[in-house]
């Protein structure tokens, strides 16, 4: 059983500010952490390995500093860690990021199950997982709240969808995105820290990937472009509703309707 977990390093704080003049993000603090949702993905992989054997590879695309997060993954028990890092990947949107990660998955080779977190705290899209599955032409199940069974050639999962829960079985290779609360992620262990101190993180660049068509990576390979960023509008309005109680009710009703609460 070979499992690949996609993890991303994100800014430690999501309190970001906009530079009013340029309409871009002010420099983010250099503090980073592993995307919290991806810790559930890592834990899910480690749990499968404990029961069924195999290996767990953590995979990320990002700057060199991602090594730190990968060391933590080792301390949690990952067998292998791969960072795809190259300036040519800079500026990637969903299409280019998911393509780059799918190339990384091909490079690592022979994955049975790929596990992603439900979303990142910076990009917030929840799209990378399903997009990777499409690039690799494999089935996926999103919003997995429970892994029910691992069979010889398939996985059975429970998906939590808005009004229904669905139990689905998919053949390997396949991809799942796991919800938070699927498990309780373990903390990095001190013993593993000592044992894995010398373990190296594998780095790969553009040239190492199977597909060397530049037009598919980074900014050039990204069909979406961010035109501008701005602070969300704040609701500072204060209105005293006037009139009889009937008229006031009327007005509340209008406010509720306009806000789509009715």
């Amino acid at each position, binding site marked *: 059983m070979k499992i690949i977990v996609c993890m991303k390093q994100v800014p430690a704080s999501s309190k970001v500010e906009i530079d009013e003049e340029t309409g871009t993000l002010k420099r983010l603090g250099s503090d980073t952490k592993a995307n919290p949702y991806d810790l559930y993905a890592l834990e899910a992989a480690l749990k499968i390995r404990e029961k069924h054997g195999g290996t767990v590879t953590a995979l990320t695309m990002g700057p060199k500093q991602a090594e730190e997060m990968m060391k933590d993954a080792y301390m949690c028990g990952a067998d292998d860690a791969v960072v795809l890092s190259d300036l040519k990947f800079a500026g990637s949107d969903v299409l280019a990021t998911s393509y780059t990660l799918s190339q990384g998955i091909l490079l690592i080779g022979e994955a049975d199950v790929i596990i992603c977190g439900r979303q990142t705290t910076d990009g917030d899209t929840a799209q990378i997982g399903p997009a990777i599955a499409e690039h690799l032409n494999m089935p996926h*199940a999103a919003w997995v709240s429970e892994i029910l069974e691992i069979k010889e050639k398939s996985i059975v999962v429970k998906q939590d969808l808005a009004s229904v829960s669905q139990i689905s079985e998919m053949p390997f290779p396949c991809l799942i995105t796991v919800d938070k609360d699927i498990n309780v992620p373990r903390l990095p262990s001190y013993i593993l820290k000592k044992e894995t101190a010398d373990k190296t993180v594998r780095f790969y660049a553009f040239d190492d990937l199977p597909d060397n068509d530049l037009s598919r990576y980074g900014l050039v390979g990204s069909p*979406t472009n961010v035109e*501008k*960023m701005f602070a969300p509008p704040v609701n500072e309005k*204060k209105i005293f509703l006037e009139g009889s109680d009937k008229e006031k009710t009327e007005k509340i009703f209008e406010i509720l309707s306009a806000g789509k609460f009715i």
Partner: protein
Amino acid sequence: MATLRFDAQKCNLCGLCLEKCPFNALEMGEKGIIENEKCRMCGVCIKVCAQKALSFEQKASKAEVDKNKWKGILIYAEQEEGEIHPVVYELIGEARRLGEKVGYDVYAVIVGGKGTNKNAKKLIPYGVKKVFSYEHTGFDGFKTDCYTDAISDCIASLKPSVVLIGATALGRSLAPRLSVRFHTGLTADCTKLDIKPNTDLVQVRPAFGGNIMAQILISRSRPQFSTVRYKVMDKAKKVENPDGEVVIVPVTDDMAHSAVKVLNIEHINRTKSIEEEDVLVVAGRGAKNDVEMVRELATELGGQLAFTRPMAESGFGDNAHQIGLSGRTVKPKLIITCGVSGAIQFTAGMNAAECIIAINTDPEALIFNIANYCIVDDLYKVVPNLIKKIKDAKNMED
């Protein structure tokens, strides 16, 4: 637009792909299988090839797209437990608004098991030009792979400029696959849309947990995909003389075939915590004579009832339903406080709510310092009136 990639080394020349293609779009050429212009990207050939010799070519052509070749707005009509999901009417409303600006028609695609063709008809009164309906028992349940195939089939033949999908659990799992297949852009969870005269869609979405809004364009490729947040766009109104039609698209077993086997589907009644709730109604000490009335308002609004500390302490609710310093911190879209004075220990737990409506007889009550809408009146008059109005409005719709 190249759509298929062929690996001659894997092909064993069985010819099944040519035979199974619903559109007669494949030919055995000099260098192997090639698709002609009839290809609809439905993926049947890829599914039936045991050798895995075929896959989707996901690379955009270098040349700038001809935007004139991609016209109209397609919305995905999601079904939930056999009913049309309410977000669909919002998508139609938004699509019509955008369409009017650039002279685009609005189309819909619906995919599902039994009853899908019947549901398709329900969209016509709302001004949809054509509803493409893919009904097949193979589409029962939530299977993104074959749904992607069916919707791709529709997109490849219609060539819409914009595709709008609800940012629901299903939509957010489906849209990324579609946009990858058409090697184009997708913006997730949009809260505001506009369209430029050159048909570029202006997409606004929150990022960093809502701390920042990003405005995004997909100007080099088509179609432009967005998933749209539920309950932000205006619902479509019915049109006077609807002239749309339902197009029932033939679906083969191969087309509806999925690698995902659905073993069970169960309805869930989830109990949300007050922190997860979009709408909260709070009963303060002023409401202690009729808490059930306040609860009814919460229920009518699809939200939950919460309490101030004295109310929780008097046994009306538990700590999990108490807001404030010694209770829970909430950030709902809407909070209505009934008979709450607005002490700092209370407001500290709710002042980040997006919209605060306060009802209190005392014009000097502290709660009015933070409320967006202030109602100085007796809650025992205002609340029943409001419940009645909401109920009447709901009955009108049915």
